[in-house]
């Protein structure tokens, strides 16, 4: 994106409704007042630059970035894709952070009480900057499904959390990537909070033979699309 171009609005046919009663935690945390329209100014159209972070390749390899005394346990996978905007243009040098449960469905978090083992060699966090073509690539362990208390016998489908920055603060996106063919997707109130089926499918990675490395790891492709520029530039 060139500097300070007005962006398309958030596409509310793609994003979930804020109040979604099937997802119980929304009941007291969703907004009741309509959002107030805000003209886009420098406050919205600038954003943090993360070139100073000093990230290394190790940060993007979750199978190695927390190793203590052995290998991370589970099915090794590669998750890669492109970060683009709605016009199809690459978003280079953008920060992507990921976090996930381990192969047994357990997070490294004091509030995660799931009776499943922690893996001392797997933390489940990674970060990377996109390259000049907007590409990113993580090596990780396929996360397990895990139970939660939203409704009886509720299980979250396996997923990887993504936190993404564009060049503008209002391009900020936090989302979750799911795996193809997961029977839990049809039952998950978070995934299904997005009403539009085609939009939901944009949260599901595709299996990729190109990304799959022989004798090593399955590959999954997950492209991420941020708000793109409107045709009319910002008048300064």
């Amino acid at each position: 994106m060139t500097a300070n171009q007005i962006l398309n609005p958030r596409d509310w046919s793609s994003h979930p409704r804020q109040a979604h009663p099937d997802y119980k935690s929304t009941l007291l945390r969703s907004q009741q007042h309509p959002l107030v329209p805000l003209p886009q100014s420098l406050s919205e159209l600038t954003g943090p630059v993360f070139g100073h972070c000093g990230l290394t390749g190790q940060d993007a390899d979750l199978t190695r970035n927390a190793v203590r005394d052995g290998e991370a346990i589970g099915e090794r996978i590669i998750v890669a894709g492109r970060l683009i905007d709605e016009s199809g243009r690459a978003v280079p040098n953008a920060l992507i952070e990921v976090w996930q449960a381990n192969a047994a469905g357990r997070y490294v978090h004091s509030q995660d009480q799931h009776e499943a083992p922690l893996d001392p060699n797997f933390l489940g966090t990674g970060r990377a900057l996109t390259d000049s073509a907007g590409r990113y690539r993580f090596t990780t362990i396929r996360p397990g499904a895990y139970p939660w208390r939203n409704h009886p016998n509720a299980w979250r489908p396996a997923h990887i959390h993504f936190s993404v920055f564009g060049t503008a603060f209002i391009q900020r996106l936090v989302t979750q990537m799911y795996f193809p063919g997961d029977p839990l997707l049809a039952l998950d109130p978070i995934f299904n909070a997005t009403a539009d089926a085609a939009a939901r499918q944009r949260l599901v990675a595709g299996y990729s033979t190109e990304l799959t490395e022989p004798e090593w790891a399955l590959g999954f492709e997950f492209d991420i699309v941020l708000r793109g520029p409107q045709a009319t530039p910002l008048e300064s």
Partner: protein
Amino acid sequence: MSSQTPSQTVGPFFSHALTPSWNGRPPIAGTQLADERTPGTLIRIEGRVLDGAGDPVTDALVEIWQARHDGAYPDGSDTFYGFGRASTDAEGRFWFQTVKPGALPENGAPHVNAAVFARGMLNHAFTRIYFSDEQAENSRDPVLASIGPARRKSLVASLRDSAGPPVYDFEICLQGVHETVFFDA
């Protein structure tokens, strides 16, 4: 044309990735954006995140993005990056140490931009933090003017009556009668 990737909740388990200081890992950004060496007036912003029942939200993530003391937005070339990140504690509290942003004529009264994320929020919510001791600037700000006086107050952090460096209090109410103004930019 491609279509936007849908937002999903940050969930309850983000801290080992996004605010990992407790785990001994260097964060991308934290609660201290500035110190005595940073040009400008050093301030603290202290706040709480509350839900629709008035209870503290103990697993929220608050991010801020702001201009430098001279009103210009950082472009990555100086040591003040203008971006901060905090997770709320067991009482729903968060704080930032930063410099008071300046104002540019074309960008309204001094303010800090904020995004709020939490379990139970399927989309993050954007708001702004203005300052109670900027009454003249605030009265001319077109964004504040576009909001009725009752709700406008939710965007203005109050300067605490205390000695020492300025502290501003800012409460974020996610829902209900006192709901903070959230923006669709």
